[in-house]
C-alpha cells in the first residue's frame, strides 16, 4: 500500500505552486474580479503552458493523459491562489465527458483544441448534479435542445458546451449555435465565470457513447471542488496564523491567547484528514471505479462542511480586518461558499451516498 503522491505528482504540484506564486498574486485576482473578466489571460496562458488544459486528455489528442489524482493536485493549488481561470468544467468535466462519452469523430473535433487551451468548453449539469431551481431544465429531441440550464460552469468566453438534458443524455453545443443565449450570472465568487444558458431549438450533437458518463463527470467535478476547497481552506488557516502572530493587543500577539490558538488548532485538525478524502476520491476513478461515486460524495460533503467552518473561523481570527476588502481574505471565503453549493450541496450529496449504499430507494 502506498497512500501518497508519486515523485511525478509532487513535481506537478511544485511546478504549479511555483508558477502560481509568481504570476497569481492577490492583485491579479483582484483585477480580474473587479473587471468581471472570465479569466486572467496571463495566468491562463502560463498554466496552459504547464499543460493544465490537457491534463486529462489522451496523448493521442495532444493532452498529457494523466489521471484525476494529478488534476486534484492542480485543483488544490488553484484553490490556494483563488486562481481566476477555468478548470473544473473546462479542464476536467468537459474533457472527460468527450473523452469517455464521445465517438472518435467527436474526440477528434474537440479534444485537440481543448488540450492546448485554444478551445474552452463549459459544462451545464447543475439540474442533474444539484437539482433544478426555478423550474430550469433542458429537453432534447430531433437534434435540438430547448429550455434553460442554470449555473453553467466556465461558461463565459467558452466556444462550446457539454449539456445534460433532463433525462441524463449529454450533448455538445457550439457557442454560436442558433437559438442559444448565454447570460452571465454574478455570484459572490468573481474568480470563476458562471452563466445561464437558454436554448430554443438549438442544434446539438448527442455524445454518442455517453451512457453512465454523466455521473462520472459529476463525481470528478465534486472531487475537484473538494480539492479546491482544501487548498483554499489551508491558505485561510495560514493567513489566520500569520495575522495572529503580527497583530498585538494587550501588549502581546493575539496568537498567544488560547482563545485564538484553539480556533486555529480546530481549523488545522478539521483540514488535516480532508487531504486523504480528496486523494482517495481521485484515486478511485482509475483504480476502483465502482467506488468513485461514494468516495466523491464523502469528499465533497465533508470538505464542504470543513470549508464553511474554516472560512468563517479564519475570517473571525482576523477581527474587523477579515471583514474588509483590504486583506482580500474574502476571495477565499467566497470561493469556499460557491464550492459548497456547486454540483450538489452537502445535504444532497449525503442523500445520494445513502442511496448508493442501499439505505433508501
Amino acid at each position, binding site marked *: 500500500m502506498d*497512500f*501518497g503522491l508519486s515523485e511525478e505528482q509532487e513535481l506537478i504540484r511544485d511546478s504549479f505552486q511555483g508558477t502560481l506564486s509568481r504570476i497569481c498574486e492577490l492583485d491579479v485576482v483582484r483585477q480580474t474580479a473587479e473587471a468581471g473578466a472570465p479569466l486572467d489571460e496571463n495566468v491562463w496562458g502560463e498554466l496552459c503552458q504547464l499543460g493544465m488544459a490537457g491534463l486529462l486528455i489522451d496523448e493521442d489528442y495532444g493532452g498529457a493523459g494523466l489521471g484525476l489524482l494529478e488534476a486534484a493536485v492542480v485543483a488544490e493549488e488553484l484553490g490556494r491562489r483563488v486562481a481566476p481561470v477555468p478548470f473544473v468544467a473546462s479542464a476536467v468535466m468537459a474533457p472527460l465527458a468527450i473523452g469517455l462519452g464521445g465517438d472518435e469523430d467527436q474526440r477528434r473535433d474537440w479534444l485537440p483544441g481543448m488540450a492546448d487551451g485554444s478551445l474552452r468548453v463549459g459544462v451545464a449539469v447543475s439540474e442533474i448534479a444539484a437539482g433544478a431551481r426555478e423550474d430550469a431544465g433542458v429537453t432534447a429531441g430531433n437534434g435540438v435542445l430547448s429550455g434553460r440550464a442554470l449555473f453553467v460552469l466556465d461558461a463565459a468566453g467558452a466556444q462550446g458546451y457539454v449539456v445534460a438534458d433532463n433525462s441524463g443524455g449529454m450533448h455538445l453545443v457550439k457557442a454560436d449555435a442558433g437559438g442559444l443565449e448565454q447570460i452571465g450570472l454574478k455570484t459572490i465568487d468573481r474568480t470563476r465565470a458562471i452563466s445561464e444558458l437558454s436554448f430554443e431549438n438549438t442544434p446539438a450533437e448527442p455524445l454518442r457513447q455517453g451512457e453512465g458518463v454523466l455521473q462520472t463527470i459529476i463525481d470528478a467535478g465534486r472531487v475537484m471542488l473538494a480539492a479546491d476547497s482544501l487548498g483554499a481552506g489551508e491558505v485561510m488557516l495560514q493567513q489566520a496564523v500569520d495575522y495572529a502572530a503580527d497583530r498585538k493587543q494587550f501588549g502581546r500577539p493575539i496568537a*498567544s491567547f488560547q482563545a485564538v490558538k*484553539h480556533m486555529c488548532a480546530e481549523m488545522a485538525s478539521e483540514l*488535516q484528514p480532508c487531504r486523504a478524502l480528496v486523494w*482517495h476520491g481521485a484515486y478511485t476513478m482509475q483504480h476502483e471505479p465502482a467506488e468513485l461515486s461514494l468516495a466523491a460524495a464523502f469528499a465533497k460533503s465533508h470538505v464542504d462542511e470543513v470549508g464553511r467552518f474554516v472560512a468563517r473561523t479564519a475570517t473571525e481570527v482576523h477581527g474587523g480586518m477579515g471583514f474588509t476588502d483590504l486583506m482580500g481574505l474574502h476571495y477565499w471565503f467566497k470561493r469556499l461558499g460557491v464550492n459548497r453549493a456547486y454540483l450538489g450541496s452537502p445535504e444532497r450529496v449525503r*442523500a445520494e451516498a445513502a442511496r448508493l449504499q442501499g439505505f433508501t430507494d
Partner: protein
Amino acid sequence: MDLNDRAEHKVFREEVRVFLDENKHLAPGESAFSFRMRPRNLAEEVRTWQGLLVDHGFTSRTIPKEYGGYGAEVDILKSRIIADEFFAASVIQGLGNQGISMLVPTMLEHGTEEQKQRYIRPTIRSEIVWCQGYSEPNSGSDLASLQTAAREDGDDFIINGQKIWTSGAHIADMIFCLVRTEPDAPKHEGISYIVFPMDTPGIEVRPLQTMTGTPSFNEVFFTDVRVPMANVVGNRGQGWVVANSTLKHERGLLGDANRSLDSLLRVKKLLQNESLDGRPLMENSLFRDRFIRLQARVQAMRLHEMRMITDAGKGKERGLGDMVVKLLGCELNHQLDGLGIDIMGEIGVLYDESPMLRDGGAWQANFMFDLGLIIGGGTAQIQKNIISERGLGMPREPKVAPKAARA
C-alpha cells in the same frame, strides 16, 4: 498511490488469515476496549492468547527477540494488515494495556539493560500488569507541577504523596510513576520516572467510583514507600523527558480508526434494526443524514491514518497530521456513541438491567467512557495547545507572574 498490497504483503495477509482461521476459537470473546473500560484480573485464557500472539509476532512484533518479542523489522504496513485482519475477524489483537503500549516503548528507549531483561518479556505476555502513576489531585494538565516526593535514604528513595486517575491500579502488579526527586530544581527538571511493585509496603489503592458505575481508576496513596534508586528509568531528574516519550505513545493509541469503524458499523446495525412507530429508523432521513456525516468522518480518519502510515514508512517526521489524531478520533467516537443512543430514543437511556436493553447497556457506558478519553491522556484543550504551538508554531501563553502579597 496504490492501495493494493504488494506481493510480499499479499502473502503476509494470507498468513494472518490462516492463523486466524486456525486459532480464533482460542481468543477471548471480548474487545481490547472492554478490558480498558473495565480493568480486571486476567483469566488464564487471556494470558495464553496473549502469549500465542507474541510467539507469532501478531503483537509486540518489533520488540527485539532478546527481550521476548518477535524481533521483526519495523514494517508499518504489516502492522496495519494484522490490525485490519484481526478487526475483520472480530478477534482481539492482544491487550493494549498501558504496560504494553506505554511502558515497553519507554523502557526500550530509556531503560538499562537489566531493566529491559527483567520487565519487557513478562509485560508483553501480560504476566506483569502495569498501571501509570502520573496525575495528581493538583497536577492534571499541568502535570510537571506534581508533588509526590521521593527523599533519599541510602540506596533507596522513600516516596510520599498521592496519585489519582490511576487506571487499573487495583489489579496492577507494578506501577510506573513520576515522583519529584530534586525538590530544588526547576519543575520540569526535578522529576524522575521510577517503577516499583504495587505490593510494596505503604501503598494504598482506593477505587474511584465513576459516572459509568464501574470503577476503572483509582486513587493511590504512598506513605513511606521504600523503592531502590536503581528502579529509576532513564537518568534521575530526567523523568519529564522520559514521560513525554510515553505520553506520545498514549496519544497514538487513543485515536484508533478501526475502533471508530467498529462503532460506525454498530450504529448502522441499530439504524437497520431499530424501529419507531413501526418503521425502521433507516427510513428516517434525519438520522440517515447524521449517519452519513459521521461515516464520512470515519472514512476520513481511516484514510488519513493510511496517509500517516505511508509518510512514516518513507521516514517523514511526525507532524501536524499525527498531532490531530487523538483530538479528532476521541471526539468522533463520542459522537458515534451519541448517535447510537439517539437512534434508540428512550430505550437508549435504559441502564443496568432491562429486557429492552441493547448490547448490554454498552452504548451509554461507552458514551460516558469516551468522554473520559476526551479528557484523559491530555485533555482536548491541551491537545489544541500542542497542535497550535508545535504544529502551527504559535507562541505559548505567557506565564502569569505571581502577584505580590498584599499587605
